[in-house]
């Protein structure tokens, strides 16, 4: 467990599935150098196969006794989808636009399909997913080389590329399948919670670009932070699949607002909700019932009195009200350690315990 924990809350009532976060992350980090197939941030349709395909059935995480469960490493063609591209350069010469790889699978292959019968009770909602920067990460526990570490100052889970040997047990160990094998460098890579931005007081790219303004970012122990209030004070933000036992630090406001169902004649069934609460319980655990009650009560209070602290918090009239970051904190941490900001190193091995001299990557500037 780290000293402090940086955390993100995503309000699923507001997510419109526009993939702007996906694109922000992709252009920032994963459109090059062997990461082309990876989505450190993806938005999947729930219910659906998700990304990678059926990730919830691929094992990993911990059982109730705390034992790491074996898992399966997804296949590029079948489970992630091979990225394809088109012959744009030759279109002017009269070629027909054709992909360079026959697309057979990819993220969002089943976008907006959902479940149920149209128009009676079909439903879906969007589930944006990044690395959960877990308090008890499955990837870290699975690594036989101590190559994955959790930063003490903010709990961000990172891969030490100097130590990583590309064994891929981390992928089997992560129940969210949010760590990926980079075939170009033969090492594992994952969401870094945009720590170079965070250290400068900027929110991660996915949160900064979010059109629906669904993402709150801050320190969980900071009582003034939005994430603290949503997770600990109002208890309306819940971790995804808490049954995996990794104690995820990305939290979700469950989707409470869905249209009612229709009967066979197309009439509204009053008081019904298309999103089955059992599905929400599967995703967010039994506390989802209390969270929904709290959210409904706050909406009612707002309607009746015009006032609600929780609603104000969720609405966030200014985008800046969604983030509470502190670059001074990072400057102090760096000063304390005598390190350059933006040069994270795994301190357990930095002193060259087993070699006379270790090479590490220099700071970017």
């Amino acid at each position, binding site marked *: 467990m780290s000293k402090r924990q940086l955390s993100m809350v995503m309000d699923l009532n507001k997510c419109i599935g526009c993939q702007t976060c996906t694109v922000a992350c992709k252009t920032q980090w994963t*459109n*090059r*150098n*062997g990461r*082309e*197939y990876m989505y450190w941030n993806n938005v999947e349709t729930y219910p659906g196969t998700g990304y990678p395909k059926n990730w919830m059935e691929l*094992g*990993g995480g911990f059982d109730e*006794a*705390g*034992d*790491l469960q*074996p*898992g*399966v*490493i997804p*296949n*590029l063609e079948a489970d*992630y989808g*091979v*990225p*394809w*591209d088109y012959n744009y350069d030759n279109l002017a010469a009269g070629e027909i636009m054709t992909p*360079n*790889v026959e697309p057979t699978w990819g993220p969002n292959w089943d976008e907006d399909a959902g479940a149920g019968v149209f128009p009676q009770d079909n439903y879906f909602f969007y589930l944006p997913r990044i690395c959960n920067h877990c308090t008890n990460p499955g990837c*870290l*526990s*699975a*690594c*036989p*080389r*101590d190559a994955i570490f959790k930063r003490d100052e903010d709990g961000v889970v990172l891969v030490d*590329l*100097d*130590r990583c*040997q*590309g*064994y*891929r*047990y981390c992928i*089997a*160990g992560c129940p969210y399948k949010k760590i*990926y*094998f980079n*075939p*170009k*460098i*033969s*090492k594992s890579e994952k969401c870094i919670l945009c720590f170079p931005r965070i250290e400068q007081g900027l929110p991660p790219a996915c949160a900064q670009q979010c059109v629906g303004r669904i993402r709150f970012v801050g320190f969980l122990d900071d009582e003034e932070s939005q994430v603290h209030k949503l997770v600990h004070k109002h208890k309306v933000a819940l971790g995804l699949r808490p049954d995996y036992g990794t104690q995820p630090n990305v939290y979700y406001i469950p989707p409470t607002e869905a249209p009612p169902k229709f009967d066979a004649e197309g009439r509204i069934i009053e008081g019904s909700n298309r999103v089955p609460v059992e599905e929400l319980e599967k995703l967010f655990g039994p506390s989802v019932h209390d969270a929904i009650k709290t959210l409904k009560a706050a909406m009612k209070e707002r309607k009746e009195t015009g006032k609600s602290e929780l609603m104000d918090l969720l609405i966030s009239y200014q985008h800046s009200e969604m983030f509470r970051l502190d670059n001074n904190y990072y400057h102090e941490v760096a000063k304390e350690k005598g390190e350059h900001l933006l040069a994270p190193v795994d301190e357990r*091995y930095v002193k060259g*315990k*087993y*070699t*006379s*001299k*270790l*090479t*590490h*990557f*220099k700071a970017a500037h």
Partner: protein
Amino acid sequence: MNTLVKSITAISAVTASLMASNVEAVKVSDDVTKLNPKSAIWSNAKFADVMLYPQTTMKMNDKKANAKNANNKAKKAQVAAVYDSKNITLMVKWPDATINKQEGFNSKSYDMTKTDTYGDGFAVQFASHFEDATKLPYVGMGSDGREVVVYLQKYVGRIFEPNGNGDVEMQVNRKQTNYFNDQLVAYDERVNQLGHKDYQRAFVSAGVRSMTEIKDQTAEYNMRLMYGTDGWIGTITRPLTDAYTDLNKGAFPMVIAAWDGSKMNRDGLKSLSSWFSVDLEESGNESLVSELNSSPKGDIANGKQVAADNCAACHQFPENDFAPYTMAPGMFNIGGYATTGYLKESIIDPNAVVVPGYNRNAHRNTPWYELDNGKRISTMPAFDWLDEQSMTDLIAYLKTLKAGE
């Protein structure tokens, strides 16, 4: 390995050494750094059989790979050594029915790129210190205070390691460069040159998790890999003496390990030998050779009973596997890769060598050790009270626990 050559000529006749698992190194006047697996000199070398056993002390967490490796058999490797006044070259031949490569990266298309292929490979391990042959480092890449140096060669396609050289502009997608036509071709070529084709590494390690790559050019070595008729032939050349170990002491211990890519082998999913001796022509360290080639004599049936009474509550045994696998190291192949000295030491003083690969966080209810000021304290109680006969019988029994060929 610079090129993968299918050898057309049969490997030279094998001269099995009289003593099992003792490699008699041959001193030659030629420079052994120039040798490759096809060099004529190998016909004069003395090959010894070394058995490799499936690693079953620790269970890995890859479901598919575990299924493929559930019934692994032992493999018979052959090892020979030649040396000159400064350097030593060892040859390792091991059976492997298929050539498996970890696919590298195709910069133009993802067609050829794979995320779940694994390469065949081998590793050679030397002890940093081996004055006391009964207290060698743990066979699984050393242990606290008992460091080893490990050399690894794998069959891996072209990969591009982050190198810290600041050439990040060569890491972008080719379509995002401002190059066209000839310039783009030149860019591709420059990128291509940054890739490594030869996946060979040297590590220092004091226990599986601590393995750290030597990147400061202080380890001089060269490895070569070639597929023979029905298996791989690997060689490793290194100085007899360097900063990591001094092998020039009459005899030295070593360990070899092999990975089979077709079985998704990597890291702990491997076959490995016990410590075995390499005897140089010069005299010295005879005690090491005799220690590593002695076999304990005892009443195996009684030893099995001692194990059932004292050990099986925590350790899994071939016919006694009711203990949870996370409780303690598995004993299925312990006789294959543990030395008599290690077994005895671990029974009497479990804290002397605590199997370091175990991740306590992965199994928090069954920690194999507690940490006391950074020192690992084994959760196993000392069995120093066992009488001499029980101890001898127990060790004799443990030495029989190994997979068949």
